[in-house]
């Protein structure tokens, strides 16, 4: 392909050659802007013109219009003449631009959207609770198979990753504590440190965060995609309540799976701490387990598991809620999935902080 070129042969005549196409124009658009052209009729010689497309015709016509000139085409292929003429008839008005939105209006819209989303979330929680009540009144309609399937996907298959993460976390907690405790000769207290930290805080929190990233996001993406492909509408027209089929089994499954995963994380986390205590502080497994049994109470375990139950509901509800907020496109599915993860982790930590405040008031 020969690049487009353009030379003045006389005052009112220009010779075009090469490919005046999207691919052939290259720097010609800048070059043509610097050339002056007489107003009135200008001859464009096209015998060497290899090709011309809309972009080429557009560039030529714009140039002519800027100088108040009209084109007389000589030796042009008939088809290109037609295209050139068609482009010439198109009035070049200013481009339509999206309306400007002021900063204040944007801030207001963001605030209003946030508020509306919070209200929508409340409505969603209410509807889900209502659907759960209706389902409990007719226990035969509970979809146990779906619940079990969700437990397998969200719980059982998450065992390796939660176990590994909690184990590593146990190592980190013990390692950070070991140095401080050694200063005071209080090596054995590493058991209390690891035990309380894992059982009450870290195990439920790390499990909830992993599940928010694993299951919460997949719930949002699944429901969002089903909305885009009109599967949710189809469900409604077939008389199946989407909340009952899509949301409740997920909430129930996580409410069962997350506490169990937390207990599993307790075990591997404490084991991680135990390994570190032996390496760094010379506390044997036997000694560790002995003190663990005497110092830690069932209450700590139950507090952690109870928190996990709440976290599970938060993660499942937010994942489903954001999924249902998807509007129309692939882009929206991605955005809602991201929001679901960020929002559920945020809310899990907020809830955890609230628990700490409440427990300190109750002196638990």
């Amino acid at each position, binding site marked *: 392909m020969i690049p487009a070129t353009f030379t003045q042969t006389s005052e009112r005549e220009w010779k075009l050659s090469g490919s005046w*196409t*999207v*691919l052939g*124009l*290259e*720097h010609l*658009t800048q070059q043509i802007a610097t050339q002056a052209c007489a107003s009135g009729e200008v001859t464009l010689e096209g015998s060497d013109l290899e090709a011309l*497309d*809309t*972009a080429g015709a*557009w*560039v030529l016509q*714009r140039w002519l219009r800027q100088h108040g000139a009209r084109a007389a085409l000589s030796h042009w292929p008939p*088809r290109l003449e*037609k*295209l050139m003429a*068609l*482009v010439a008839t*198109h009035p*070049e008005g200013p*481009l*339509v*631009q*999206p309306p400007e939105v002021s900063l204040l209006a944007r801030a207001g819209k963001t605030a209003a959207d946030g508020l509306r989303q919070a209200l929508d979330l409340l409505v969603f929680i209410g509807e889900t609770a209502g659907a759960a009540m209706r389902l409990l009144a007719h226990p035969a309609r509970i979809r146990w198979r779906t619940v079990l399937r969700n437990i397998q996907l969200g719980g059982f298959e998450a065992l390796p990753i939660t176990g590994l993460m909690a184990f590593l976390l146990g190592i980190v907690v013990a390692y950070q504590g070991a140095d401080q405790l050694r200063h005071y000769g209080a090596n054995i207290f590493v058991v209390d440190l690891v035990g309380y930290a894992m059982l009450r805080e870290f195990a439920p929190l790390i499990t909830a965060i992993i599940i928010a990233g694993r299951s919460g996001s997949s719930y949002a993406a699944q429901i969002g995609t089903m909305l885009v492909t009109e599967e949710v509408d189809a469900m409604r027209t077939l008389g199946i309540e989407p909340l009952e089929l899509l949301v409740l089994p997920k909430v129930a499954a996580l409410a069962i799976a997350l506490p169990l995963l937390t207990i599993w994380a307790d075990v591997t986390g404490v084991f991680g701490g135990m390994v570190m205590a032996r390496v760094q502080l010379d506390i044997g497994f036997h000694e560790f387990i002995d003190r663990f049994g005497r110092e830690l109470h069932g209450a700590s375990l139950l507090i952690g598991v109870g928190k996990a139950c709440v976290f599970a509901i938060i993660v499942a509800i937010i994942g489903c809620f954001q999924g249902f907020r998807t*509007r*129309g*496109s*692939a*882009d*929206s599915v991605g955005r809602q999935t991201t929001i679901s993860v960020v929002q559920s982790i945020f809310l899990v930590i907020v809830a955890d902080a609230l628990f700490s405040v409440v427990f300190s008031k109750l002196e638990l």
Partner: protein
Amino acid sequence: MVTPEPVLRMSKVCTRFGSHVVHQDVDLEVLRGEVFAIVGGSGSGKTVLLREMVMLQRPTSGAIEMLGADITALGEEESLALRKRWGVMFQHGGLFSSLTVRENVGLPLREHSTLDDELIDAIADWKLSLVGLAADAGLKFPDELSGGMLKRASLSRAIALDPELLFLDEPTSGLDPASAAGVDELIRRMHSLYGLTIVLVTHDLDLLWQVCDRVAVLGEARVLAIGSMEELSHLEHPIIRGYFDDPRARKARERAAA
């Protein structure tokens, strides 16, 4: 009159998915400047054939020659160069949902040229007006468009680079009769304006009668017949008869004759 050269030639193309044979020795030629339709029942492999032509799928065996190049044996650069010479309009539009309609149409220009943004937007708007969309439609996102507008916007993107060849997958499916007639008209207009070669897959009898020069009927994993609708109407094969014998088919023929 000089016989036009073929721009697309498929020879002995076979496609199999596992043990399921979709095409067995499909041979066809599309000539420069014609409107060529591929028809056939559901599952006869029309769309698969179209996807093979535009290099989205490889046939199991056989050769496809496009604009003088064997597309089953092309390097990366040659296939990119070839892709710029054709436009494809997908059945469901295939517009990018995160871009406005104007950005969708301007995307091929932006990707493949060094033209400035203002010029690209102006050209995109012009292409949108060519397919009959108002200027403010360019600012909308694809999910805000109706079915007919979506098809038009998609066609507009397919012709963004002024291609030599245009592939249309079911251009009128899912449209009301008035919009479908509008798309018929549009295809005719594009054809006369750019003199391009159009290959389309369709079920639309009006489109077949009024716009298409030649039609290939797919069935039983092969090409049953190729010819103008007039020529096909004399054939006796039951699948082909289906396009002529029922009342809807007769009406479409009468409308075309009128």
